[in-house]
């Protein structure tokens, strides 16, 4: 089992504890609040991913063969999901990121949040993370 898969399995386990949407949402809100802040200087226009409603900033750094992602969002629920995605994909090797299957999204019931027509920019965020991985892999 790769590291990325392991982390996903843990997240799924975490979410299995929740009885209802409220606990899940509260957890996401907490994750959002706890997400390590992105450096202000990285909240640039280039790093901005615009959803229709909430915005996501994503910064990537390549150090010691791994990619470190930092990110932020103006909506806290979006930021909670951003935190999970960073948890899964940051500090991993480019080739693992590029090929990662993010099955956990379905299993923890966030599929709707990550559908192409949602207004939160998360789909573009995942795409961009993978593009960074592909770029750094070459």
């Amino acid at each position, binding site marked *: 089992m790769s590291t990325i898969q392991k982390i996903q399995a843990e997240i799924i386990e975490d979410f299995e504890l929740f009885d209802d949407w409220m606990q899940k949402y509260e957890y996401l809100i907490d994750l959002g609040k706890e997400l390590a802040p992105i450096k202000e200087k990285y909240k640039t226009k280039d790093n901005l991913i615009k959803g229709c*409603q909430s915005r996501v900033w994503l910064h990537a750094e390549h150090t010691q063969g791994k990619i470190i992602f930092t990110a932020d969002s103006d909506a806290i*629920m979006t930021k909670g999901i951003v935190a999970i995605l960073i948890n899964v994909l940051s500090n991993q090797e480019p080739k693992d990121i590029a090929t990662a299957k993010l099955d956990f999204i379905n299993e923890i019931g966030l599929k709707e949040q990550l559908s192409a027509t949602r207004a939160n920019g998360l789909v573009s965020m995942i795409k961009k993370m993978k593009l960074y991985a592909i770029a750094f892999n070459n």
Partner: protein
Amino acid sequence: MLDINQIRKQFPILSRKVNGHELVYFDNGATTQKPNSVITAESNYYQNENSNVHRGVHFLSGLATDKFEETRITIQNFINAKHSHEIIFTKGTTDSINIVASGYRSLLNKGDEIIISELEHHSNIVPWQMCCEQSGATLKVIPLLDNGTLDITEFGNLLSKNTKLVAISHISNTLGTINPIEKIIKKAKAVGAKVLIDGAQAASHISINMQNLDADFYCFSAHKLYGPTGVGVLYGKEDLLNELPAYQGGGEMIKEVSFKKTTYAGLPHKFEAGTPNIAGVVAFKAAINFITGLGINNIAKYEEGLLQYATEEVLKIEGLKIYGTAKNKSAIISFNIKGLHPYDIGMIVDKMGVAIRTGHHCTQPIMDKFNIPGTARISLAVYNTKDEIDICINAIKKAKMMLS
């Protein structure tokens, strides 16, 4: 007095559950729900009457044509237009505005000016930007005051003999402001300008009367009037529609076609190229009948009561700010809660069955003006109740608790 329970029973979707809760549908500004009479009119059309219109001699074609044209008369009466051929069926408000704006590309020149306002829906901004780009005309913008009303003094300053067209919404979909269009029309006419009114948010809420209003063009969408999607109206004064260049080419809109010379048909066909949304237009009549059956003034009065109640209640939530506090206002409440993102509020109340809209509501300039990313918006219709408002307010409170 309207019997709201009786009205609610006519809307099947209102008894469905969402996320385990009774649906509270407060996104009526985006689109209204449909009564059974509209749904049945559409399916009945397909089950018994369907045929292409206008040119067939067979029975069903005549029947479909009659039904289609009946709606035109119904709309004519609904808005008190002088002629039925002043009613053009379109895809929706956006389509209607584009037909006019596209036509004015060749009617305007450099030096001419179009006036819109800062509170317009994108559908009443972008077509005019395109029109100006192609014609060389200049776009002027009436600024918005802090209470969400238009700066009418400044409008006076913008008006000049160069003003060829003024395009203003009757009611703001974001702020609820009912614009003083009677005054705007009068002032615009005084300098010889034509006036287009975007009535998307007005037609289901307040009485509109073309012959009193003296607007040159008036646009609205069936889907915001308890009617089907994919149908809209462009009302235009006969002589102006005659002047306006044809928009799309194709079947129905021609008189004669040859490779040497093609001539266009008269009104309304000139602007109705191709097979129209026949079923939608036929069902639209049922929607208008629903409204006139209740009485538009009764609807307005009832919604006013709802608005007042909702405003009072919502303001009890600490840190909540309403955008748009005009005295003359339709049943729309846009708000933000200090420190919270509207998206988060929308997400959470949705889990409690409450459908409100969040975002910029296709009015980015308003967001820019107030320097906010968006708002949460409650927009009401005749089938909504005070009980639903209570449920919504409780849901907002809960969201606030969770998010703070």
